[in-house]
């Protein structure tokens, strides 16, 4: 519906009347070309740039997220390593600073533990194990003196490696814990081991300080994928985490994967050197990208708005321009027809003038000869009494006079087609035109009532154009009326500088739907009877050319009335007089 309402005039234009070679433009094609070309030129780079920009921005944000995760993992790994190294070195210091005797002294050992707790902290208990794997001294919350560790994995490792950090295990105490053990060789070739278990809460505190958005998590697993301590979302200590154990790397690695709910997950991990631990940080990608998604929807909205605005402007401007071209073209075709019409009329005029002139000479001879006969009749007595002969000559003379009147009128009319502005009386113009139509009116028994008051002054106008206007209107009126019609021509003074000419008939009238279009070129209801649909549009153009206006009032079945307003002073249009018809 809307499309129909906004459909421009040119859309369904078919230049039927112009013929196949006179139509210069296919307006629909021009419109489409204009719209698609400008839309293409405007929108393709816009969309292209927007897509590139979108990808660049998304990639930048993604890599920023990855980088941040990587930095976080690295920093955390560094603090964990530092935490463990610190405690390792502390034990190393103790082992070198104290003799075995000192360490075997429970008092001294308890003092050391106390000092450790006070200074660097994070220790839970401490014990001394001899060469055979038996704990000889111990201070801490459990009773572990005399326990044999020779079968424990960590003990075997420390004997081999000198320093060992265990993963989290239950051990003899059946509580999850992990230990740092340092082996010290004695000068006699024997050795002992000092072993401390670390406070799990201290260790956990390292991870809980990490700032993580939303459902992000940081935790530590060992190399078998066993969770080492509870984290925010993982509580099953010493059980396998749902992630696979990542590939070994000396550096921090960040990769993307998806979790069991198919959500995008960013995972960053780092192997903590010389320990069984792997630090893992997971982040929900969607949550991190949330600000970007918001920006993205704003940008997309703006893009869609821009595209619609551009399209609307393009369509609007194209429609406006093409419509103007269409109107100009219509005017051109109209002018072409007017010129043709005027030329045709001028040719007819010249032809009529030629004929009239040629006839005038023999007519003058007949006139003289008949005049001579009449002279003879009146000057010679033998004929004067012959009423019959006198009557015959008189009728010849009166017929010649009639012919003379006709040829005069023809010459007059033809001449005025070419003559331009002159002073004229409307009475003479009406009479000239009616002179041609009186006979036709008689045949159709049409009564012509002319009412021209004497106070209408002579005025300057284009006689030829005025004649054509009246001729067209009266012809139309005749066509609309059947036998016994009444044609009224009424002239009145409208105001100081205008006169009104009314041409009214009591014919068939014009329907309301046709009323709007009567002055349109090529609009005709007489197409089958040879109407071109040009008469009234040319009349309209002619009225405008002489500076007047024309209006039509009509009632179906009652008749039609044309009102023409004519200015009493003729204003020459700019350029008129210099204009010539090209070609």
């Amino acid at each position, binding site marked *: 519906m809307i499309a129909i309402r906004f459909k421009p005039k040119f859309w369904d234009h078919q230049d039927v009347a112009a013929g196949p070679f006179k139509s210069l433009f296919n307006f629909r094609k021009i419109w489409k070309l204009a719209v698609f070309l400008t839309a293409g030129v405007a929108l393709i780079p816009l969309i292209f740039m927007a897509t590139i920009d979108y990808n660049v921005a998304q990639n930048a944000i993604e890599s920023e997220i990855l980088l941040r995760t990587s930095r976080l993992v690295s920093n955390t790994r560094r603090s964990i390593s530092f935490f463990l190294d610190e405690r390792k070195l502390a034990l190393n210091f103790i082992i070198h600073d104290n003799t075995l005797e000192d360490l075997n002294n429970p008092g001294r050992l308890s003092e050391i533990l106390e000092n450790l707790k006070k200074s660097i902290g994070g220790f839970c208990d401490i014990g001394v194990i001899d060469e055979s794997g038996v704990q000889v001294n111990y201070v801490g919350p459990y009773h572990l003196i005399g326990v044999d560790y020779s079968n424990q994995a960590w003990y075997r490792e420390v004997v081999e490696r000198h320093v060992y950090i265990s993963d989290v295990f239950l051990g003899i105490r059946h509580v999850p814990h992990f230990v740092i053990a340092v082996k010290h060789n004695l000068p006699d070739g024997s050795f002992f081991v000092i072993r401390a278990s670390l406070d799990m809460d201290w260790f956990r505190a390292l991870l809980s300080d990490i700032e993580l958005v939303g459902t992000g998590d940081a935790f530590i697993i060992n190399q078998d994928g066993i969770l080492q301590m509870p984290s925010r979302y993982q509580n099953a200590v010493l059980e396998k985490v749902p992630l696979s154990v990542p590939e070994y790397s000396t550096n921090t690695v960040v990769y993307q994967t998806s979790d069991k709910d198919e959500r995008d997950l960013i995972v960053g991990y780092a192997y903590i050197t010389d320990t069984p631990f792997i630090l893992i940080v997971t982040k929900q990608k969607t949550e991190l990208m949330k600000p970007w998604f918001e920006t993205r929807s704003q940008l997309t909205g703006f893009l869609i708005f821009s595209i619609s605005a551009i399209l609307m402007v393009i369509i609007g401007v194209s429609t406006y321009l093409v419509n103007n071209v269409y109107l100009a073209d219509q005017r051109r075709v109209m002018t072409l027809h007017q010129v043709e019409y005027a030329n045709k009329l001028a040719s007819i005029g010249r032809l009529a003038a030629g004929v009239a*002139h040629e006839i005038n*000479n023999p007519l003058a001879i007949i006139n*003289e000869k008949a*005049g001579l006969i009449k002279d003879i009749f009146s000057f010679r007595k033998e004929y004067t009494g012959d009423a019959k002969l006198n009557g015959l000559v008189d009728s010849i003379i009166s017929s010649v006079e009639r012919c003379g009147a006709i040829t005069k009128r023809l010459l007059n009319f033809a001449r005025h087609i070419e003559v331009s502005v002159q002073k004229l009386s409307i009475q003479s113009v009406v009479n000239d035109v009616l002179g041609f139509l009186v006979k036709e009116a008689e045949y159709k028994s049409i009564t012509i009532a002319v009412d021209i008051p004497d106070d209408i002054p002579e005025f300057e106008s284009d006689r030829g154009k005025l004649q054509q206007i009246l001729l067209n209107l009266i012809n139309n009126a005749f066509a609309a009326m059947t036998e016994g019609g009444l044609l009224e021509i009424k002239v009145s003074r409208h105001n100081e500088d205008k006169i009104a000419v009314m041409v009214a008939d009591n014919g068939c009238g014009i329907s309301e739907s046709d009323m709007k279009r009567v002055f349109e070129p090529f609009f005709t209801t007489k197409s089958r009877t040879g109407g071109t649909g040009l008469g009234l549009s040319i009349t309209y153009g002619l009225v405008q050319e002489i500076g007047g206006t024309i209006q039509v009032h009509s009632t179906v079945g009652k008749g039609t009335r044309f009102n023409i307003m004519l200015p009493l002073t003729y204003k020459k249009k700019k350029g008129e007089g210099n204009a010539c018809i090209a070609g």
Partner: protein
Amino acid sequence: MRVLLVDDEEQLVSTLAERLALRGIDAVWATSSTAALELAQSETFDLAVLDVKIPKISGLELKKRLQALYPQMKFIFMTGHGSEDDFKIGAAEAGKDFYLVKPVKIESLIEKMNEVVQQKGDDK
């Protein structure tokens, strides 16, 4: 009053001369400008009635030549082309000459002739 009639239609001028003669007006006719000029060499005329369109030398041109010979001579033009209205415009250019449109009524022609001849006196 001696009148010179010039028109390329012999039938017209001869009949017209005859009719004028019947009314006591002495009219001589010619069908070409050259013939008219020859006649004018040998005779004098008070008035010339000329067709506007005569082959070779036009009515207006002929008028000028005749006027050169006889400055007192008066003229009436006849034409088969156009209406009196148009010749009102032309009359302004041609001076105080009279124009008549063919076919001409003999009565109006004589009327004009008398007018012209009387004007002659006025001019003096």
